[in-house]
């Protein structure tokens, strides 16, 4: 993973800060001198398409290199991103897809993780799907599997790029309710075109690029 701007020597309380980052694709400037100090909490990005929301998330998780500026992270900070696309391994089971994101070594840890995943699957309306190949799920079910993979990755910084895309209103509410316990005391950046959905997460900061 290439990331020329991440600096690990950073204060422990402050997990993430971006300083004067600029990113262009050809002649199009997507991010222009953007700076922000992130503290633990939920940040919402709901600007129009093409404003650089996804680019910012990609920079923060190290998939994109900035033209200038720096991204500062505290040492050993783990950042994961839920992409706009599900990016699941279609031939693997729901359980395998989520387990892949968890770094576990002992059998006991793995067994305990499996139990927690089963419970979480029930809470998002996917009970009994743990052994099903992802290819057999509907679009909305896949989205929820991708969401659980992000939540179970046990990261300090969680980046969500339109995580509830394709889910109906009632299901969105249910899913957000089950997401809440996972995001406490973490930095969450939530990209959405329907900011109402984030109100359900509790207090949040609207971020402007």
């Amino acid at each position, binding site marked *: 993973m290439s990331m020329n701007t991440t600096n690990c020597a950073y204060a422990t309380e402050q997990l993430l800060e971006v300083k004067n980052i600029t990113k262009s694709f050809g002649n199009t400037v997507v991010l222009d001198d953007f700076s922000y100090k992130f503290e633990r909490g939920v940040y919402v990005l709901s600007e129009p398409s093409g404003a650089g929301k996804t680019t910012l998330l990609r920079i923060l998780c190290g998939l994109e290199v900035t033209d200038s500026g720096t991204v500062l992270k505290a040492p050993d900070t783990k950042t*994961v991103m839920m992409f706009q696309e599900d990016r699941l391994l279609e031939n693997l089971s729901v359980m395998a897809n989520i387990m892949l994101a968890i770094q576990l070594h002992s059998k006991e840890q793995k067994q305990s993780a499996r139990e927690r995943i089963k419970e979480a699957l029930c809470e998002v309306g996917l009970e009994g799907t743990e052994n099903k190949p992802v290819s057999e799920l*509907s679009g909305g079910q896949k989205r929820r599997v991708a969401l659980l993979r992000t939540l179970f990755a046990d990261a300090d910084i969680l980046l969500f790029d339109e995580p509830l895309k394709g889910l109906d209103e009632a299901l969105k509410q249910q899913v957000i309710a*089950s997401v809440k316990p*996972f995001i406490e005391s973490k930095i969450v950046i939530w990209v959405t075109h329907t900011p109402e959905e984030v109100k359900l997460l509790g207090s949040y900061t609207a971020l402007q690029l």
Partner: protein
Amino acid sequence: MAHNPHIKDSISARGSAEKGAASADFSVEKNDQAQSAGQTQGAGRVQGKPTVRKVASSWGARLGALVFWLVVWQIAAVVINQDIVLTSPIQTIQTLFSLAQLREFWVSIGLSLLRIFAGGALAFTVGSLLAFLSFKYKLIKILFEPLISTIKSIPVASFVILLLIWVRTPYLSISISFLMALPIIYIAVLEGLLSTDQQLIEMADVYQIHGWQRIKAIYLSQLMPSLKTATSLAMGFCWKSGIAAEVIGLPAFSIGEHLYNAKVYLDTPALFAWTLVVIVMSALGEKIVMRLVSWAAARLEKSCS
């Protein structure tokens, strides 16, 4: 995760409704397919799995085609009426039964199988390893590309004659099978690796899926379909080239040796009987290898969870 029974109940209801809708859509799609195929099945009776009738009719069609060609063969043999030119299917089977009484028959089949499978297995291992290394290190790819292209374009006969000088005859069919299958496996694995979905690679980077986990979950699982096709193709090549090498190299106790003797003594029934053995062994061998590959793929998928 805190569990809220109210949430669960309403999610479950929603989940069931969604599943119901999904299955309803699926039924409609299946019904459309059934109708377009001219079938008259009642609503709700359409199933994803093939029915017994469909399987039976598929096997019936195959058997029918086989019987048709056997009849054509028998008629041609009766019309020609010269065993030395064309042996009838009945006589071929009779010869096969008499050959099967001999211990040498089984030993020859066993040894040929062993040699050809050894060559195929070696090609599978070396080809896959080389492809992985070529994928990882561009220098290795540049180095091996001309070699693989050369092996691919050299005729089997040239290799056999050349290898007769270099290796002892028992190892000839192993070497030839290896050389014929190697480019197929190498190219399939390398192409599969190069065409791995970049979005999945990014996902693996973000979720820190590294080492063996990454190979298993991302690369091997993406590679499996092309690897299965390549293995099937390579097995066919191994058989054809391996037997051809035996016919030229004449190792003791081999199918090739018996084919050669049949040619020398103008024993056409034996030639047909041994050819039938090759066809049956090739089909059986391919089935076994494909089962092994599928079993390995299933184990691999299971080990990811």
